[in-house]
């Protein structure tokens, strides 16, 4: 459908210039809008490529980033993304380019199985930062005032305080006993099993479920 949208000839040159200023232009300043390339890219996007110890080598850089060497190419500062952050933490990880477009380089099926421990730990570190979700171990105090809830909690990262609006789906029930709380600043807290809280704590929490 591409060519229908633009007149041929002079129009294209102008379009290219416009494109250079847009975000697309950032990654490849002299790239032409090439339909064949677009086709090819589209084809590429359909392919699911698995990464494992044999075809991919992750290295932790001094600067704290991850580099990936695969298929004879070096990708710097790759991003690792969980496809199922809530239901499958260490499986189905999408490894993406560090650029703004973040094209997918490949997929790690199972971090524990497909890579050695050191690599696994390096990737996990990245993941833990990206998906920082303190686990609430104790509810110290819960107050509600004019539509806002104020929590003082103990987490596995230490004590903290946060607030959320009570009528905004801030508390999400993932399963019968597992809940997520998202505060006003979009921080995430997890309670993996509310039954592990004391009865008193559960009663405090009940108001928001």
């Amino acid at each position, binding site marked *: 459908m591409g060519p*229908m949208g633009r007149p041929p000839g002079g129009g294209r040159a102008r*379009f290219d210039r416009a494109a250079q200023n847009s975000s697309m232009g950032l990654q490849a300043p002299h790239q032409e809008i090439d339909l064949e390339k677009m086709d090819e890219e589209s*084809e590429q996007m*359909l392919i*699911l490529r698995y990464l494992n110890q044999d075809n991919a080598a992750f290295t932790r850089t001094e600067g704290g980033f991850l580099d990936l060497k695969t298929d004879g190419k070096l990708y710097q500062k790759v991003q690792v993304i969980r496809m*199922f952050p*809530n239901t499958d933490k260490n499986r*189905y990880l999408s490894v993406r380019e560090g650029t703004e477009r973040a094209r*997918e380089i490949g997929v790690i099926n199972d971090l524990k199985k497909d890579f050695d421990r050191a690599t696994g730990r390096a990737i996990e570190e990245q993941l833990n930062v990206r998906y920082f979700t303190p686990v609430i171990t104790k509810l110290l105090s819960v107050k509600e005032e004019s539509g806002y809830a104020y929590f003082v909690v103990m987490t596995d990262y230490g004590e903290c305080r946060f607030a959320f609006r009570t009528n905004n*789906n801030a508390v999400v029930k993932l399963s019968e006993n597992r809940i997520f709380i998202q505060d006003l600043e979009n921080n995430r807290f997890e309670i993996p099993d509310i039954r592990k809280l004391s009865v008193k704590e559960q009663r405090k929490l009940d108001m928001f479920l």
Partner: protein
Amino acid sequence: MIQAKKFMESSASAGAETLPKRLLEQLEAWCHGPVDILCAAVTDMNRLGEFAPGYLILTPDALITAEATRGQYYTELSGQSFFARQHRRESDVAAYAFFRCPFEDVEQFCVSVQIRTCTLYYKARRGVDRQIAVYTAGRYQAVQEVIKRAQQLMGARDGQQAGEEPKRAGAPGRGADMPPEDGAHLVFGAGAEATKRRSVMLRMMSYFRPYVLLMALLLLTYLASAGLNLLWPYLNGTILYDRILAKNEEVLSFLHLPAGRFAAALLLVVCAMVLTKLTMLGFEVLQGAVLAKLVPMVVLSIKNQIFKSMGELSLSFFQSSQTGSLMTRVLSDADLVVDFFATWLPNILTDSFTLVSTCIIMFVLDWRLALASWVLLPLLAFITVKLRSRLHTLFGRRHRSERSLRSKLNDNITGVRVVKAFGQERREVDRFQGTNENVRDAELSIVRYNNLFSALYTLVQEAVTLLVWAVGAYFVLVRGDITYGLLITFAGYVAQLQQPLRDFSQMFRSFTECINASERVFEVLDAKPQITEAEHPVRMRDQKGSVSLSHVTFGYEPNSPVIHDMSLTVPAGGTLGIVGRSGAGKSTLVNLISRLYEVQEGSIQIDGVDIREMSFQDLRRNVAMVSQDTYIFMGTVAENIAYANPQAGKEDIIRAAKLASAHDFICKMPEGYDTVIGASGRSLSGGERQRISIARAILADPKILILDEATASVDTETEKQIQASIQYLSRDRTTLSIAHRLSTLRDADHLIVIEQGRIVEEGTHQELIDKKGTFYLLMELQTKALAMRGLTDEVKKGER
């Protein structure tokens, strides 16, 4: 005569309505002999366009029409199910006028469809064409079937094939393939569905059957407290005053107490009184507990059933108006119904018990006082009837105004974007205020009337009490023929009468409300899905996916077809592009193939099997649709993709998303495939929704893929990606693709152009362009329009 009799019997045994006896007699007289009736249809107008019952009667060699000319009759245009429940006033037609059109005169039967009515006429071989019947849209289907059979008969008669195309009247559909039914049958309009005449109340009660023991317990507690209530005035009046305070020795011997120990007797009586009150309290607690247990359970089961039968209903039910209101209404109706059965019904029973027994006791105690207390009852009844009915209408008004207020609010919140965009906040406030004032007015008038009612009611009741006291005091003081304790007792009973009377005054409203609510509930429960699975569906394990339509006619309204007599074939694995202007019937066509609607005439076959014979499971598994209105359910992205195939693993889901070019944007969401979308979840753009629905279709892995404007709401780059996905998807699959952008159909094996429900052009892309017909025109137009749009974009960019 014999045949006619047989006809009557057979249709009677089939449970259908029969031709009236008088009609048959007159028909036979008119024909000078017995008539062999094959089938018949009811019409409802005469040729002058007035309401009049009439019949189309098919005999082996002619079509006979009968029109009522004299007599009293009435016409049901719709709502047959409602009227069937009412007492039915039978039409009494005194005389019919007959008209016979022998087949040898008829070249073809035709139906001309006007806006509201249809006219049946025939094209004559010789002489003039003639109108023979007029009827409303509701009768269309029935008449059509009779004509179809007539046409078959004529075809057989002429030694030709049955399908001598009548103009839209009798394309050989399923009926033609089936052996002729033995005996005749009378065809009625679709609206005359059989209704269950079982009483609504009894049926509702069946929901309580599992809880019979609880109900019995409930009734028992009600009756027990009513009984104790009866005892109370006696204890508190006669026993206390006349026996103990009056120092009556009998009571001591009755209680086996030594003489003179009245203090002990008093203590005993007080204890008894306290005990009575405590027991009553206990019963009340028990009632509360039982109700709390019973009501939610019954409400739950009713609501569950409503939801279940809603799911079974066909698409057209949900597209009919006011479905949304129906949903909420039905759900709150369940509460209303259960409330009546669980609180009002036991109340009515105990109230009547109290009322009757109190009256009897009063009468036995002293008939003169009893009469005195009853003398004003008619006045009470009068007030109730007069004012209550007025109050009911007021309640109705409040309900309606509140409802419109709510919908106003809802409308405004959902449409807030439009309101703000056009800066209409001020006007919306004004509009809201108007509705709000209606609510206030309704509320005010209710309060006014309610106050009046309560005041009058209390006044009369007080008057009754005073009268009883006055008369009683006269008897006690002057005549001395009743005791003071008896008077106290009597006053107690008078007070006892008040609650049942109050209840009764409200009972009628609750009763009608309950009946109405039950009827609405059953309306949904009884609504029959128009599309049902065949009784013995054909199971098809390995489908290849060829699709063929033969002479398909369909319309959303019975008399205005959207698809006319359409035939086409798509071989397995082929790609068919469907082109046409908006409203040409493209989406309707594909909806018919996935059997969301049922064809009216003709048939649709997949791999040579009529889809009506196919099991729903096979059909739905093998036909997947990606349409312009994608629906996202509440749930995670992964759940939405796996909707058609819940067993799919995570890997399958990722692969499908990848193929649908959805993987990237999903990964960009913080929670990836675990992101909750749909109502109350994260909102997706049109293109994102579209890609999720494509992924859904990929995972469903159908043999037949229907793309209804699958790339309508995405930009060019995304469309490119989706096109790639679709191309992958349509490999080895039969694909039917509707597109406005004609260039997307370049790869289709075959293209059809639809205009007003008919195929006007077909061929390959190149053939159609060479033909320089409609397709070429559309193509030209679009190229120009797009070029224009492209130019204006350039200009805008230049300006920036």
